[in-house]
């Protein structure tokens, strides 16, 4: 294991993150706070409790995930797309590192940022809404695994994309709709039966439900099943990313 390389890439990527800290943290925190004020405070007070949880508290895990998923995807994709775009990837290609080490450095840094961001939103949500986390360790585990998975997804996207347009289109056109339709702001049991079935094909359902379960102990899907599905996504994304690096997909002639 070339641990010097992993460390070097990780530090370098974290430094990039901290240099743009304000924009990468401030804007998601601001927008989530707005959600809490509108949905949690203004509208939420007129809504019924779901599964015995107040509406404002019910949407907290989903709101955290929206940011974690989009930020993981865009941050990790940019982290590898930029070197490709500017040509500095030559150094990665000529370095004595394995695909696994490259992933560990880049995705590790992106996932770290997402976990920090998720925790920050959690803390700031607490300023607006009264809630508690039933299983903090499970919550942390879900947060880490989801961050890693979507950072891997973003990494794949960054390797695949050959324009900024393509890079930007996936988070807005794919992630956001999936999150909104994935039961982040409602319980799936509130949908008509046909839509309940269709919804089960949305991977975000499993993420949100597992994550929400760690907060309130309630979920539309059994937590074991959620965890299995998330692990499946993680393994799939890792395999694709590894294969792309292994075959130098789109980065070597």
């Amino acid at each position, binding site marked *: 294991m070339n641990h010097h390389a992993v460390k070097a890439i990780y530090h370098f990527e974290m430094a990039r993150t901290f240099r743009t800290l304000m924009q990468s943290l401030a804007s998601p925190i601001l927008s989530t706070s707005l959600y809490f004020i509108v949905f949690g405070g203004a509208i939420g007070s007129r809504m019924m409790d779901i599964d015995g949880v107040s509406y404002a508290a019910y949407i907290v895990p989903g709101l955290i995930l929206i940011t974690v998923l989009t930020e993981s995807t865009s941050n990790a994709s940019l982290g590898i797309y930029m070197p490709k775009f500017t040509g500095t990837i030559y150094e990665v*290609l000529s370095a004595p590192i394995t695909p696994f080490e490259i992933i560990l450095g880049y995705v590790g840094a992106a996932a770290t940022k997402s976990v920090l961001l998720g925790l920050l939103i959690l803390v700031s949500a607490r300023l607006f809404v009264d809630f508690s986390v039933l299983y903090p360790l499970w919550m942390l585990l879900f947060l880490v695994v989801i961050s890693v998975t979507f950072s891997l997804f973003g990494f794949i996207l960054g390797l695949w994309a050959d324009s900024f347009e393509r890079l930007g289109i996936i988070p807005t056109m794919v992630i956001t709709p999936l999150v909104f339709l994935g039961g982040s702001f409602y319980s799936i049991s509130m949908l008509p039966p046909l839509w309940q079935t269709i919804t089960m094909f949305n991977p975000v359902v499993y993420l949100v439900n597992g994550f929400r379960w760690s907060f309130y102990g309630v979920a539309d899907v059994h937590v074991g099943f959620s965890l299995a599905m998330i692990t499946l996504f993680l393994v799939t994304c890792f395999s694709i990313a590894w294969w792309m690096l292994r075959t*130098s997909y789109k980065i070597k*002639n």
Partner: protein
Amino acid sequence: MNSYILDIQNLSKQYPSGHKALNDVSLQVERGKILALLGPNGAGKTTLISIVCGLVKPGPGSIQVDGLDVIRDYREVRKKIGLVPQELSVSMFETVWDTVTLSRGMFGKPADPVYLESLLRELSLWDKRKSKIMTLSGGMKRRVLIAKALSHQPDILFLDEPTAGVDVELRRDMWGLIRRLRDNGVTIILTTHYIEEAEEMADRIGVINKGELILVEEKNTLMTRLGSKNLILELAEPIQQIPEALAPYGLTLSKDGAQLVYTYDSHAGHEISVLLRALQEQGIEYRDLHTRQSSLEDIFVNLVAEGV
């Protein structure tokens, strides 16, 4: 078993576009030498270097570095190699120090601020270490690329057109640096399309054109083997034509009749005295004589013309 630090055997490369960039190239490089790969744009120099360094997938053929296969033993091989690419590819938003630190780590070496300081000082980058790279001039960026390539103390340094678009001062600096590295045992492989540079720097010269390595020779051998010399005689009195008796020497007479030029192989020196005697016999007096050796440029033009 393998005394060459770089040993390329029968390497070819066809790009996915169908373009054949390298055709059956074999090249051996001795340790501690400076090899210049000389060739016009599009000859395949960058392709060759990129394959050795892992940036481009190799075609058929084999490449060994220090006896290790570049594919199978890529981790060991790449630790030994530093690459200064042709393009100015550096991350603009980072500082000089951060990017050089990244490079050293990426090539598997533990942090060594003392070495990095001496490296940056040597390259006149120390004062700029905290500057973002985008604030540096083109020449400074080129130095940063060199610093990155040397950050892990490689045994072989590849420089792809290191002085293209670089001012005279930096070019001199770079030549000095390259010589010092060679003196410390680093093998240098540089590409250039400036003949002057190959002539100035190289111990050995490889000439590459249209994907074919036309020849590789010691610079001095190349110059003498292919380089003919001219003996120029400034005549005391202009003559109308070359006397019959001097025909075997293949002399040329300048238009004004005041200059005789004799072309000869540099290792056939004794013929000169014979010629001079013959001139005397013909009563041709000369007030001055001097010789001129053909430059690499002449050699190169000849080679490339033959290759067509």
